[in-house]
């Protein structure tokens, strides 16, 4: 299960009142270069990234919430993005993991085996990419993810894979 269908139960449980999009092609992952999820990225009114946490961002985490609340209440008064210190640095998203989006498109067309093969190749080249690693798991072991996520199994599976192919 992927996309909007997979996200709906979570959104209903959280009573989410914010806009939610489905990034099947991993556009945001490519732009920001992240290899972990869940992430929080805060942009101010000037389009400046003021906070980014890649992996483990959660509204249940007090320090994450406090960091965002500080930024919200501070606004951008006194912040001049043109002369800030340190200066704003336009940075490309970093390492690309568009193999994720390519595989999801293959999966959507029903070509599960080719999708998994593409992800495995990408993961072999980038073993720290947990977005791709978990995507493989979700397709190959759906019973570990739906309806509930077996986090203990994920830890065991990661240990098994590391043993089979040390980083």
């Amino acid at each position: 299960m992927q996309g909007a269908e997979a996200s709906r139960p979570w959104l209903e449980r959280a009573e989410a009142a914010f806009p939610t999009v489905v990034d099947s092609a991993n556009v945001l992952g490519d732009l920001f270069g992240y290899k972990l999820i869940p992430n929080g990225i805060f942009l101010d009114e000037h389009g400046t990234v003021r906070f980014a946490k890649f992996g483990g961002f959660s509204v249940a985490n007090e320090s994450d919430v406090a960091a965002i609340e500080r930024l919200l209440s501070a606004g951008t008064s006194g912040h001049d993005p043109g002369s800030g210190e340190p200066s704003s640095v336009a940075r490309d998203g970093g390492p690309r993991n568009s193999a994720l989006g390519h595989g999801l498109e293959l999966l959507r067309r029903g070509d599960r085996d080719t999708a998994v093969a593409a992800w495995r190749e990408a993961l072999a080249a980038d073993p720290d990419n947990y977005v791709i690693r978990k995507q493989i798991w979700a397709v190959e072991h759906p019973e570990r993810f739906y309806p509930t996520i077996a986090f203990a199994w994920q830890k065991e599976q990661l240990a098994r894979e590391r043993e089979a192919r040390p980083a």
Partner: protein
Amino acid sequence: MTELLERAAPAALWDVALPTVEGGTLRLADLRGKQVLLFCWASW
């Protein structure tokens, strides 16, 4: 990995348009000029 930053968002971010779960489209350009929290998550 947490970063407190002051760097411009990738320019291409403002060209991004993604489908919403309700069947519409969200263009990030429409959020320009606002404070935005992007919360990226997956169902796994």
